[in-house]
């Protein structure tokens, strides 16, 4: 699991200055910069079929392919086993009873971001990396777990690079130019098509947008744009994370963390409205060694200016009207998903428990609860993987238990650092974990409320695919063994969350924490909390970033 690889495993032949200068990407790197970090680049030879790194494991190095080709892929268990096929389940299906799928299906072209100079698509979670490509950049710079498995397709020569030398490389024009070119050529196309606004646009428009896109770099912590600024275009995230925040009467709140392939500010391309939220380049969490000092990470973006976009679109009048309809619909959706933000400060207890984070907080009234466990049983039975997303344990607030179950936090810190962008915020504000999760456990560690659990795939009752079984038998690569599981609020069930629906004692409830606390504090039975909570203020609808 996601542990930083010890430096002792940094093997291979140490590259001398002369040898490095012979490699094209080091051509314009100053010799003293190379000599400053001796032994930080090693030459590694891999035979065809050798595993270079595996998804989910820790890593501290980046790889540059000097010769040969590598196959990079994510494994995904893809078949449901016997669970949900019993007599009761069959009767249930015949009676129209639903179970929630543990995974959501996507379009084959949907982008699955990985830590390499290329990305994967949902339909085909594998691609080939030729000489001149890089992978493992985020592991090297941010200690992120390996996002994919890489296997040598032919005999390969790779350079394995430590962070300090990789940072030197990033300042090299040759290296940066090459990476930018690869990005424009192989990735930007997919990223643009992945933006809902550009979905289905003619290839000509996409090609034009690729041409006008401006590649930018921001140091972590730097503001990309502020709320209220005039909108001048949209940003596509090429590398790193972007934090979306918004000011409210009670202070600034983080609303989302976006990652590679996501975009912000797209509505600004059609509507000349000021930015409704602030976007800041965010750093990754340092995994494994919190005391380790390091430079802030770089967040790379692609900016498409409004005027460039309008100029491109002017050539396709039929596209413009379609885009305007889409933008209107998107605005309406956001208006429906309004976020309630508290305007004031709560007691220390409430803050410590993180209750005000909960937009859909699960509470169990312990005066009514007979500990029959029906809530957890219902959760288990409502999902086709047979795993309960609810653990009936947690802190107490007066007579209420706050069990471990996703509370749809206002500040979803669990989204920070996923190496494959598989944890997302859905339209209905739910946190969802896509099925290309590599089981690294970063989200589980990031969640402050233990609401994301790691489960072994056997618990999912899944078969591995034939190919995966073959690979596992021959010992070539390790299968994905774990998967993160988070409460989906049963958003697909018409009766609402199964835990609440199945509680026979009227003890389980799902509440908006702010509304609940406000009502609770003014009720005559309130005993524990101080009464300095004012009524909540309803915020403006938030377009992530515009």
């Amino acid at each position: 699991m996601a542990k930083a690889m010890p430096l002792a495993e940094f093997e291979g032949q140490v590259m001398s200055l002369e040898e490095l200068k012979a490699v094209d990407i080091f051509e314009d790197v100053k010799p003293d910069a190379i000599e400053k970090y001796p032994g930080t680049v090693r030459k590694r030879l891999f035979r065809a079929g050798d595993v270079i790194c595996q998804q989910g494991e820790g890593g501290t190095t980046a790889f540059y392919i000097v010769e040969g080709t590598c196959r990079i892929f994510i494994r995904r268990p893809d078949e449901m086993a016997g669970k949900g096929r019993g007599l009761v389940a069959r009767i249930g299906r015949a009676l129209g009873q639903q179970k929630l799928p543990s995974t959501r299906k996507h379009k084959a072209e949907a982008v699955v971001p990985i830590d390499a100079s290329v990305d994967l698509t949902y339909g085909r979670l594998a691609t080939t990396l030729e000489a001149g490509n890089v992978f493992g950049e985020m592991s090297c710079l941010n200690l992120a777990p390996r996002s994919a498995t890489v296997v040598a397709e032919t005999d390969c020569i790779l350079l394995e690079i430590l962070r300090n030398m990789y940072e030197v490389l990033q300042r090299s024009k040759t290296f940066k130019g090459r990476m930018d070119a690869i990005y424009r050529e192989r990735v930007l196309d997919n990223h643009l098509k992945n933006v809902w606004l550009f979905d289905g646009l003619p290839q000509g428009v996409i090609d034009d947008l690729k041409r006008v896109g401006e590649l930018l770099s921001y140091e972590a912590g730097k503001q990309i744009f502020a709320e209220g600024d005039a909108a001048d275009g949209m940003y596509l995230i090429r590398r790193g994370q972007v934090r979306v925040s918004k000011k409210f009467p009670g202070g600034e709140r983080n609303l989302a963390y976006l990652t590679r392939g996501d975009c912000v500010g797209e509505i600004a391309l059609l509507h000349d409205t000021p930015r409704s939220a602030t976007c800041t380049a965010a750093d990754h969490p340092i995994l494994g060694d919190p005391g380790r000092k390091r430079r802030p990470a770089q967040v790379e973006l692609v900016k498409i200016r409004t005027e460039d976009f309008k100029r491109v679109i002017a050539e396709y009048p039929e596209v413009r009207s379609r885009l305007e309809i889409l933008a209107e619909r998107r605005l309406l959706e956001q208006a429906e998903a309004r976020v309630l933000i508290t305007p004031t400060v709560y007691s220390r207890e409430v803050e410590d428990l993180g209750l005000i984070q909960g937009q859909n907080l699960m509470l169990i009234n312990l005066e009514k609860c007979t500990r029959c466990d029906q809530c957890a049983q219902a959760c288990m039975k409502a999902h086709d993987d047979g795993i309960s997303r609810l653990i009936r344990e947690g802190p107490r607030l007066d007579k209420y238990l706050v069990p471990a179950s996703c509370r749809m936090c206002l500040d979803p810190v669990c989204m920070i650092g996923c190496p494959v962008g598989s944890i997302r915020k859905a339209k209905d504000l739910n946190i969802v974990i896509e099925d290309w999760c590599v089981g690294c456990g970063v989200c589980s560690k990031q969640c402050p409320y233990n609401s994301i659990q790691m489960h072994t795939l056997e618990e999912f009752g899944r078969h591995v695919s034939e190919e995966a079984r073959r690979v596992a038998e021959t010992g070539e690569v390790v299968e994905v063994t774990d998967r993160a599981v988070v409460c989906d609020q049963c958003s697909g069930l018409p009766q609402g969350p199964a835990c609440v629906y199945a509680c026979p004692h009227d003890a389980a409830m799902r509440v908006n924490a702010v509304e609940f606390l406000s009502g609770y504090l003014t009720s005559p039975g309130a005993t524990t909390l101080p009464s300095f909570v004012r009524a909540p203020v309803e915020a403006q609808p938030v377009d992530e970033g515009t």
Partner: protein
Amino acid sequence: MLLDRKHKAWAWFTVALAVIGALAWWFDPEASTIGRGGSTIVGLTLGSLALLFMLFCVALSLKRRVPHWRLGRAQAWMRGHIWLGLLSVWFVALHGAFERGGPLTTLLWVLIALVTLSAVFGLILQQFVPRLLLHSVPGETLAQQMDRELEWIRKRGEEVVIEFCGSIETAQPSPMPEPPTKAPGMPPVSTPAHFAAAAPAPAQGGAAAAVATAPPPASPPAAAPPKPKGPPVGGEPLRRFYVDYARPFLAGEYRPQLASPGRAQSLEAALRTMCPAPIQPGIDAVMSLCDRARQLRRQRRLMRILFAWLILHIPLSWALIVLAIVHAVFALRFLQR
């Protein structure tokens, strides 16, 4: 289920049906010819309704097997279970004209009485046991986790004592002299003699409490001795306390001195007076483990009480429903003749 204001509608509905049933039974037109009871149309209707209500009540246990199915909210089912179950008893009484009847109906009556009594008992328990759990077991855990947690507590207890006393089985030689049994200015404490004997005393004949609670005298930083390795001295009373009381208690044996929080506190106070300051965190840890173990055992006891009535209620309910169906089949056959 807590009987609160949400039951009001159900209660009124039940009372209304009970009154309607009673009126229909009282003014039964066939009563003057064939007498009151299950043979009349009204009696048969009341009996059929009672059977339907019983079937509904039993269906709850089936519904619990598919809690996610869209068959209505579980709490509505539970309210129906309580009130319709109660109503069915009244309808059965009307149906049987308050008579015992033959052997089968007598058996049915016994079962109805047992099922109803166990249900009422369970309902009463549900009114206060959850509150008891809430207030007396702040560190409540999942029932499935209890054994594992008790095992962890037991192991942790050993670790703490080894950390502070060096060894559990052998006495640690104490460099300090015997303590006085009562500290000046302190209320007398009931110190168990056999571990009080091993307690250290203040170095200059002062109060044992002073040794236990006062901060160490200020000394110039240059004169500070190097931190000694190994357990601190003066842990013998803690070790004896652990061996004689805490360990058996954590292992599940009954120890009245630790079974109640009040007695445990007085024992703790006595122990504290006999141990020097470096041992005090060890006492904190051991007492906190004892407290946790006490809470878990209390939780287990309360949960057993909370669910024990179901051992009687569920099988008897099934037996009742089977016999009630048998009774209905035989009665209908008899009527056809």
